[in-house]
């Protein structure tokens, strides 16, 4: 994301002394990040507020008295011009004021904080399950390339990836929870439960997320492993007579990891999309179900900051995965 070329002819002139170049390299991602944030806030704000035209009318319904609509719009400040409202929205954000939820009459920041923490728990559990599983699957598929093992792992993985989370979630509920009674139907444990009980309640909700991510990550790990297996350094290691296990762990795995890690950030974005569905299906109070609740009650202020939070989280995660990829690969670091 940081390496986006801005077009124009390639610059042939000397880009200046090293310190300035370094400064520019450090600043560029930051500037782009800020621009992206501004655009995102504009997109979210105008998307939510220009289109309906009249927030008061939207909230009170078609049959409401026009006078009460006017009064409500005045109270909410939504009778002011749109640009003024956008600027005051931005001003609030910069001062850490995320506004107040219309439906719940609570500060949005309190609601978002609690929800975000819950969602992070669920997403982290899904990642902890899926990453080792997908790496293992991908590496095994690559080592048994073009055999039935390979085809089974990748075939099933891809078939599961394309299924919507609510479909896999429902089937899991029916089989594991209502049928075999292995897991509870809800993600929220009785109040006062310990950490382990909480974890146990989260396993079933995490599984649809695991299923949707597994195929893609396993495919990447497989591709990375195959590239590593076909490389000259792998041939050298084999010819040197290194034992197979050493070759795989020391030479192959590191290179198989790289492409996988660099997409984890973008996958985290898709994961948040899946969270909406999973949290609703399993009745879990996270950012996804909060955004959904805001959408259902037409709570525009909460909806806006909720969507914005998700966008910021996604941007931060993809920046973070760039950094981690750099730590793993010296070639990326020096680029």
């Amino acid at each position: 994301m940081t390496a986006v070329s801005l077009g124009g002819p390639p610059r042939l002139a000397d880009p200046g002394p090293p310190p300035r170049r370094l400064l520019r390299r450090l600043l560029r991602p930051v500037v782009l990040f800020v621009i992206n944030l501004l655009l995102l806030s504009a997109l979210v704000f105008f998307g939510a507020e220009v289109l309906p035209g009249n927030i008061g009318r939207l909230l009170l319904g078609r049959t409401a008295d026009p006078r009460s609509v006017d009064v409500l719009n005045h109270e909410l400040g939504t009778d002011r011009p749109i640009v003024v409202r956008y600027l005051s929205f931005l001003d609030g954000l910069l001062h850490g004021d995320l506004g107040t939820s219309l439906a719940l009459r609570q500060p949005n920041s309190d609601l978002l904080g609690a929800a975000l923490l819950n969602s992070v728990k669920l997403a982290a559990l899904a990642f902890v399950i899926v990453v080792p599983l997908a790496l293992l699957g991908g590496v095994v598929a690559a080592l048994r390339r073009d055999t039935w093992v390979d085809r089974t792992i990748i075939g099933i993985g891809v078939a599961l990836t394309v299924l919507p989370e609510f479909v896999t979630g429902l089937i899991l509920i029916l089989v594991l929870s209502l049928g075999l009674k292995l897991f509870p139907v809800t993600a929220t444990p009785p109040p006062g439960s310990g950490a382990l009980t909480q974890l146990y309640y989260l396993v079933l909700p995490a599984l649809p997320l695991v299923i949707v991510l597994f195929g893609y990550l396993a495919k990447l790990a497989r591709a990375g492993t195959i590239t590593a297996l076909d490389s000259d350094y792998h041939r050298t290691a084999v010819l040197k007579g290194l034992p197979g296990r050493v070759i795989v762990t020391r030479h192959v795995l590191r290179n198989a990891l790289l492409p996988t890690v660099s997409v984890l950030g973008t996958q985290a974005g898709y994961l948040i999309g899946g969270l909406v569905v999973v949290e609703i299906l399993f009745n879990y109070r996270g950012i996804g179900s909060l955004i959904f609740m805001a959408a259902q009650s037409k709570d525009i202020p909460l909806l806006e900051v909720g969507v914005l939070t998700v966008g910021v989280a996604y941007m931060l995660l993809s920046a973070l995965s760039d950094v981690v990829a750099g730590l793993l690969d010296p070639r990326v670091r020096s680029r």
Partner: protein
Amino acid sequence: MTPDVTRAVRVGPRPIGLVVGAVILAIWVICAIGGEHLVQDPYVGDSFATLAPPSAQHWLGTDRLGRDVFARVVVGARSILLVAPAATLIGTVIGTALGLVAGYAAGIVDDIISRLIAVVLSVPVVIVALLALVALGPSNFTVIGVIGFIFSAPIARTVRAAVRVERDKDYVEAARLRREPGVLILVSEILPNVLGPVLTEATVRLGYAVFFIATLSFLGFGIQPPSPDWGLAIYENYTLIRASAWPVIVPAVAIASLVVSVHLVAEGLVRRSER
């Protein structure tokens, strides 16, 4: 084995996915077209037989309003098979136009379009769609528009990359020297040469369109009642899953089979075009 035989063996099993996918897809298309003429009325419920198990009269049981689940799943193929391709078509047209302009114009125009694409792609589809559908009000038309708009971003990105490769080739240079107007160069010179990636991207997007529209319907923000749409049917019945799983599991399996068949067909077509 002779090389010819090994080649045949290796190529042989590949189209199986395409054939299986096409058959499943064809069945659903027949259901969508035939609809009410093939089965009993999907809208009329028997209030004395709600959430009934499968019987001779109701092959797959009834839903919470006593409506026939089999009839609803057959007729329910129609809405998703209209809305998903329409959304994909809109996304492909807008995305191709944006990608052509961004890739060819470069400079500030490209910067602006590329930033906008990056921003749209930075929020999960379901969440942007929820935001827009709250503002616009959910209906078939708004779902088509919203998903089409969101899908134009990844399609524009693909087209832009393809155009940047073509832009500096000799035939474009020649057209420029002939003083063809920019629009003509884009449409009659570059577009035919990037059509391959465009169509590939569009077929893959169709699978995702089904995925997201079914999800939105499940959330109550997609296709609206009284449509027998599958996602909507699950939304209406899943709280009663303990009483009867049929009205939920049947549309869920239908969605799964449709999504997988679209992906099988898409992948089969992509492979054939690559060969």
